[in-house]
């Protein structure tokens, strides 16, 4: 009974996380003079039209999330995953709607025709700890599920559903590492902050924050493998989750405080699809900061990113499908 209640609470909480993420993303603090991914004239976000777009976005976001949370409660074992998926999808659609409204209602602002770049190498600050953080964010997320895989192997577990989840967690960990690598080595320095050192620091913290966020589901899946008893699992997982959320909140606070509103990517608005994902095949950058709020988008026009997404999607769909089929067979 207690486990069931905790499970429902967890499902509800995860569904809300998606909406929280979108809510925070649509903050008034944006890069350059931009609003929902569109270049606008200064002060548009505080205008009557801007406030109306933001208000409608929030109202629609939370209404749809409430529906998603209720739907997830009736889906049993698949509730957590479906809840997260539905809330993120709803947020993305509502954000796209706000993006389109901004494009229609805000006076068009042209993209700059002149791009600037520093030709000199800015001496790096004594920041070996940034390098350590980069390395940790690249190593820890794939290592946790790898340990769980080793533990499951050692125990000779025959639970095929668990194996698929572990493979999925391992892949998620590898993606976290790739994300940190892209932020460190394949990002434009001028988009994130006006100085190279500030940009480097911002990108490292951003990557660490995302690694921590993804470490939560990775850790959860891994703990299921290591601690099969549900009571021990919840007793271990929930305090860890609270601690993790606190650290993520602190990093996000720092990032919001240090987001330089003068820095923005030099590309036209048409590169931002739905206002939140970037697609520009002629741009060598793999990651670009979101124009609104704290976050980043992969360059979906880059061949490397396309290949990575294809692999992740295929593995996710296959692992989820097989897991669902196996779960239903076990239930019978």
């Amino acid at each position, binding site marked *: 009974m207690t486990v069931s209640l905790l499970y429902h609470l967890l499902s509800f909480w995860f569904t809300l996380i998606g909406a929280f993420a979108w809510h925070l993303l649509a903050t008034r603090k944006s890069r350059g003079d931009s609003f929902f991914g569109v270049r606008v004239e200064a002060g548009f976000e505080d205008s009557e039209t801007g406030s109306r777009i933001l208000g409608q976005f929030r109202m629609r976001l939370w209404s749809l999330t409430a529906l998603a949370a209720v739907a997830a409660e009736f889906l049993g074992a698949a509730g957590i995953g479906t809840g997260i998926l539905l809330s993120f999808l709803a947020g993305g659609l509502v954000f796209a709607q706000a993006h389109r409204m901004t494009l229609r209602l805000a006076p068009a602002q042209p993209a700059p025709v002149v791009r600037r770049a520093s030709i000199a190498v800015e001496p790096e600050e004594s920041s070996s700890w940034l390098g350590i953080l980069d390395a940790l964010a690249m190593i820890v997320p794939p290592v946790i599920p790898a340990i769980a895989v080793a533990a499951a192997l050692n125990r000779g577990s025959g639970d095929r559903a668990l194996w698929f989840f572990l493979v999925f967690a391992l892949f998620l960990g590898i993606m976290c590492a790739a994300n940190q690598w892209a932020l460190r080595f394949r990002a434009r320095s001028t988009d994130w902050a006006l100085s190279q050192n500030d940009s480097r620091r911002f990108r490292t913290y951003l990557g660490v924050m995302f690694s921590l966020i993804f470490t939560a589901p990775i850790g959860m899946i891994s703990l299921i493998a290591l601690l099969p008893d549900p009571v021990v699992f919840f007793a271990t997982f929930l305090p860890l989750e609270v601690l993790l959320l606190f650290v993520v909140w602190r990093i996000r606070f720092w990032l919001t405080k240090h987001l330089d509103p003068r820095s923005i990517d030099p590309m036209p608005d048409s590169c931002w699809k739905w206002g939140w994902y970037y697609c520009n095949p*002629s741009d060598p950058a793999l990651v670009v900061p979101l124009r609104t709020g704290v976050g980043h988008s992969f360059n979906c026009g880059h061949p490397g990113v396309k290949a990575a997404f294809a692999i992740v999607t295929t593995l996710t769909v296959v692992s989820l499908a097989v897991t669902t089929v196996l779960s239903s067979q076990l239930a019978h």
Partner: protein
Amino acid sequence: MPPLQIQLDVSSEVPAGRQIVDQLRMLVMDRVLHPGDQLAPVRQLALDLGIHFNTVAEAYRTLAQEGFLEIVHGRGARVVERGSIPAATPEVAQDFRRRLRELVAGVRSQGLSTAKVAGELRGLAASLEKL
């Protein structure tokens, strides 16, 4: 524009690589960049300008062939002291005169006053004499 930045005009008909070569050459000739100065890595410059890596690499190679840069694999590009430059042929001076007149005619046709053009040329001459 801060002196150690280059800019790329994406609306210009001049190719991106050529714009980089012209500006870097100008920075070296004007002694803004000195022998020994390390340049931004190809990858970083390409990322910041939003152009292909090969375009920047080709621009660096062109400048290396002209004797402005030294490219060492794994250590990037740095400005070097050019050796003795052979005296220009009369054709070079003639070509320079022609291009200068074309340029002046072009900006005058766009409305820049004769006095302003003369002032700019005097300023350029004064800065050249200081070199």
